[in-house]
């Protein structure tokens, strides 16, 4: 295995305590994992310090993490964290990511949860703090000096007077044999020298030199090439497969059929492509798809699973008493993750064990799903994370890992599976959900909101496979496993405290359940009833799942209410907000953008050929996992309907910042990805299948566009917990652009994407 050499070297360099890379650990008796990941058996007990940190005799610190890097900077940030807590230089740290034979089970790297999990007082951070205190205690014994008189720096522990001892001497190739100490103290943010600093990405040189190993570059000795044959229509099943149709293709090794899963294996990749294209498969016609035209109305007619998020139980009464009631409906299409690299995986499934090289966000859950699919005990399956192209959620990485496992199992040899672009975009990924969101609000004589009623409808089918649902992605379903289906259910009254994980509840309501008021705002008349219905396509957590769609609807509707009240959009938001961190980002963005305080739309608008305007949106991401406010400045070509964003100004608060340079990169990327999604991205389909299956039919803004100026105002708070930061900015973009278009033109667009045609149509309708 040529690709494994660097990885193995990397490990053996890192010291005597590093777990051997044989299968030996898998043969040891199982220890039931305890603590935050205790739902599944793992041989790596997260309660043990040795599961997370090893210090080699050479002083190199090796850390094992279950949160991996897809380009969002988590490799660099976690390396900084270890260097900081262990008081070593950053080049003395080796980070091992997401390998089920050596790293703890931290579930899935997703949902802006890596920072909350590993950078506060649990997970990797707490392990690192425990290790530093353990080293100091060891030094106290060796130097016969009380621990509180010792300091750690540069990989050594020093006493006053100059006596010092290096970490390597202290541990001398032994394990710590300690439990994670929940009382171990993190180094205070005010004293950080590595964490919190703009450390350049550790992978940048390898990337720009073309030497970085992606999963697409993995080569295993004796490896063959596989391709899949997906159904030509949604719901189609296999009637027959004519293996004779590809018998003449040289290098073909096997046609593999398992229920409705069809794939081919060949010696060379082109042979596999030819075989997949040439294989005659008779399929049933499929279920048929609801028409895309009218799909948002279709959603609302489906049986739904309902959840009453919040209910003041006086909403109708308050609306009846309001001076004015406004209503609006917002629509958001299915969108694709659309990874730049079609997904790829390598699997080597033998009679007694299996290894999968996978770009999955979910190493341990994938291990379990592979074990289920190939019928091996889970402990005999190893999933090794190797980075793929940016995934932004549930792209094809999980499903192609299952494809590779099924094909390898059929021939007992390693198989690399590369999805085609159409495999990826028509079937390989689980789309971000389409939503239709109904808003109603009542205002008093001053224009202040007294009641807000919201009903978001979203579609769902499948999702992350987790540990036990391989059918949640296409390969598992084709192989006969059931996807998760929405089961219709009526809502009951909310209890406990509001958890606004999907941002279904607008920021401007109190969010009261009994005396628990977890909302960010002041409006007391409040009701949010969510509806989930069955999707004809697989759905999954595309970056800022549902949070983006809901925020688009809330922040645009807030703008409509503000315009009705003839209030300035910033002042109007502040009037209804209670959460100080959200208030601070709104004020911060307005100040940084030199906000032009006045009601929208512009009174002197629509002169000349281009109209300009500004709009704002804000969010407390997932209720409390990051705070952001964004101001977009746009120009609208009044003749053509083309929207050009000129400037984004964002204020962002994610607590103590791990790496401000990396954070800016994430914010910039999130804003422009959000702009692409707002202005052009939409999954399309005909009566049988998705038709947006390549870059001519799914519209991503290319490198050549005029890029808006981006200004980031980072609010660094050291005395609060660290939150996620990868999804806050993107959540705001569609709303801020929509509000800016309204400001410029007086046209309110309530459906994504804002392509030129609907903008022009709306402009023509009011002129």
């Amino acid at each position, binding site marked *: 295995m040529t690709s494994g050499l660097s990885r193995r070297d990397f490990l053996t360099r890192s010291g005597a305590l590093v777990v051997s890379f044989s299968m030996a650990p898998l043969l040891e008796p199982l220890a039931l994992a305890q603590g935050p990941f205790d739902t599944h058996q793992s041989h790596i007990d997260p309660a043990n310090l040795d599961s997370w940190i090893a210090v080699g005799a050479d002083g190199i610190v090796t850390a094992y993490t279950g949160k991996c890097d897809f*380009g969002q900077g988590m490799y660099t940030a976690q390396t900084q964290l270890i260097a900081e807590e262990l008081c070593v230089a950053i080049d003395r740290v080796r980070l091992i990511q997401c390998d089920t034979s050596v790293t703890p089970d931290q579930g899935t790297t997703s949902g802006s949860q890596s920072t909350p999990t590993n950078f506060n007082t649990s997970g990797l951070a707490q392990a690192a703090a425990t290790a530093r205190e353990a080293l100091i205690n060891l030094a106290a014994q060796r130097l016969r000096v009380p621990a509180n008189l010792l300091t750690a720096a540069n990989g050594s522990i020093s006493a006053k007077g100059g006596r010092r001892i290096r970490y390597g001497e202290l541990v001398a190739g032994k394990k710590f044999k300690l439990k994670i100490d929940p009382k171990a103290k993190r180094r205070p943010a005010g004293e950080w020298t590595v964490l919190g600093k703009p450390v350049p990405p550790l992978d*940048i040189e390898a990337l720009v030199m073309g030497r970085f190993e*992606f999963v697409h570059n993995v080569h295993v000795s004796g490896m063959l090439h596989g391709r899949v044959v997906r159904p030509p229509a949604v719901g189609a099943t296999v009637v027959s497969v004519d293996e004779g149709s590809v018998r003449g293709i040289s290098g073909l090794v096997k046609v593999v059929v398992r229920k409705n899963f069809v794939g081919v294996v060949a010696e060379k*990749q082109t042979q596999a492509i030819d075989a997949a294209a040439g294989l005659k498969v008779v399929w049933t016609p499929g279920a048929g798809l609801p028409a895309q035209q009218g799909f948002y109305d279709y959603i609302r007619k489906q049986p739904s699973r309902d959840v009453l998020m919040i209910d003041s139980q006086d909403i109708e009464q308050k609306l009846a008493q309001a001076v004015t009631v406004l209503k609006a409906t917002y629509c958001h299409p299915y969108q694709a993750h659309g990874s*730049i690299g079609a997904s790829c995986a390598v699997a080597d499934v033998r009679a007694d064990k299996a290894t999968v090289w996978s770009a999955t966000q979910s190493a341990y859950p994938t291990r379990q799903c592979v074990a289920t699919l190939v019928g091996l005990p889970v402990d005999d399956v190893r999933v090794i994370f190797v980075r793929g192209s940016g995934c932004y959620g549930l792209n094809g990485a999980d499903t192609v890992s299952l494809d590779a496992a099924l094909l390898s199992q059929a021939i007992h040899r390693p198989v690399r599976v590369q999805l085609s*672009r159409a495999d990826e975009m028509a079937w390989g990924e689980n789309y971000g959900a389409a939503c239709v969101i109904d808003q109603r609000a009542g205002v008093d004589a001053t224009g202040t909101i007294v009641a807000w009623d919201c009903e978001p409808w979203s579609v769902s089918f499948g999702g992350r496979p987790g540990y036990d649902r391989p059918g949640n992605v296409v390969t598992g379903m084709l192989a006969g496993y059931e996807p998760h289906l929405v089961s219709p259910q009526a809502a009951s009254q909310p209890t406990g405290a509001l958890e606004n994980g999907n941002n279904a509840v607008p920021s401007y309501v109190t969010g009261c359940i009994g005396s628990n008021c977890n909302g960010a705002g002041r409006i007391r008349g409040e009701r949010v009833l969510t509806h989930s219905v069955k999707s004809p396509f697989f759905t999954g957590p595309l970056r800022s799942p549902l949070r983006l769609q809901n925020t688009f609807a809330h922040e645009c509707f807030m703008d409509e209410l503000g315009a009705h009240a003839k209030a300035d959009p910033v002042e109007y938001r502040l009037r209804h907000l209670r959460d100080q961190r959200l208030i601070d980002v709104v004020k911060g963005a307005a100040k940084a953008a030199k906000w032009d305080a006045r009601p929208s739309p512009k009174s002197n608008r629509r002169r000349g050929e281009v109209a300009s305007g500004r709009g704002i949106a804000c969010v407390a991401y997932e209720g409390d996992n990051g705070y952001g406010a964004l101001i977009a400045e746009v120009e609208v070509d009044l003749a053509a309907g083309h929207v050009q964003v000129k400037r984004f100004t964002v204020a962002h608060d994610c607590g103590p910042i791990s790496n401000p340079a990396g954070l800016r990169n994430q914010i910039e990327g999130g804003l422009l990805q959000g702009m692409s999604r707002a202005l052009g991205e939409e999954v399309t389909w005909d009566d049988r299948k998705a038709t947006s299956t390549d870059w*001519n039919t799914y519209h991503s803004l290319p490198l050549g566009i*005029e890029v808006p100026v981006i200004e980031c105002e980072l609010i660094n708070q050291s005395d609060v917990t660290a939150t996620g930061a990868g999804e806050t900015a993107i959540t705001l973009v569609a709303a801020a652009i929509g509000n800016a278009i309204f400001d410029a033109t007086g046209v309110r667009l309530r459906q994504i994407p804002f392509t030129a045609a609907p903008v022009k149509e709306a402009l023509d309708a009011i002129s």
Partner: protein
Amino acid sequence: MPGISLRVNGAVHVVDVDPETPLLYVLGDELHLRGPKFGCGLGQCGACTVLLNGSAVRSCITPVGSVNRQEIVTLEGLGTPEKPHPIQQAFIDEEAAQCGFCLSGVMLTAKAFLDQHPKASEVEIRHALAGVLCRCFVHTRMFKAIQRYARTRQA
């Protein structure tokens, strides 16, 4: 079948493959190069870009038989970690990557264009990048890096 002679990053390789095989698969599967990536296989995104006699071509739709004996350079052939090519140094300096999968398309398309049009305007550079995708949307930093490289060429 006589082998096809490929000159890649200064070395000569003789490969025994169907001449219709897309160059990308030969570079990746036979020569184990990591620079050119499979993005779409349709010539739409740029991830598979290599330099062919100094021009950017999309190796996923270039038959290997058509490049016999011609000079091919991939991203790893531009510079070395000890001595990065100026455009590689520009991307390092601007920290112009997230996942990095698109870099062959972005960097080699920009390099080929600027080498042929050293006095290109900002608008002309953008036009040259109209068919290149980055799905992490590192556009701002990448464009700064490309402009930095353009300045080093003019200096």
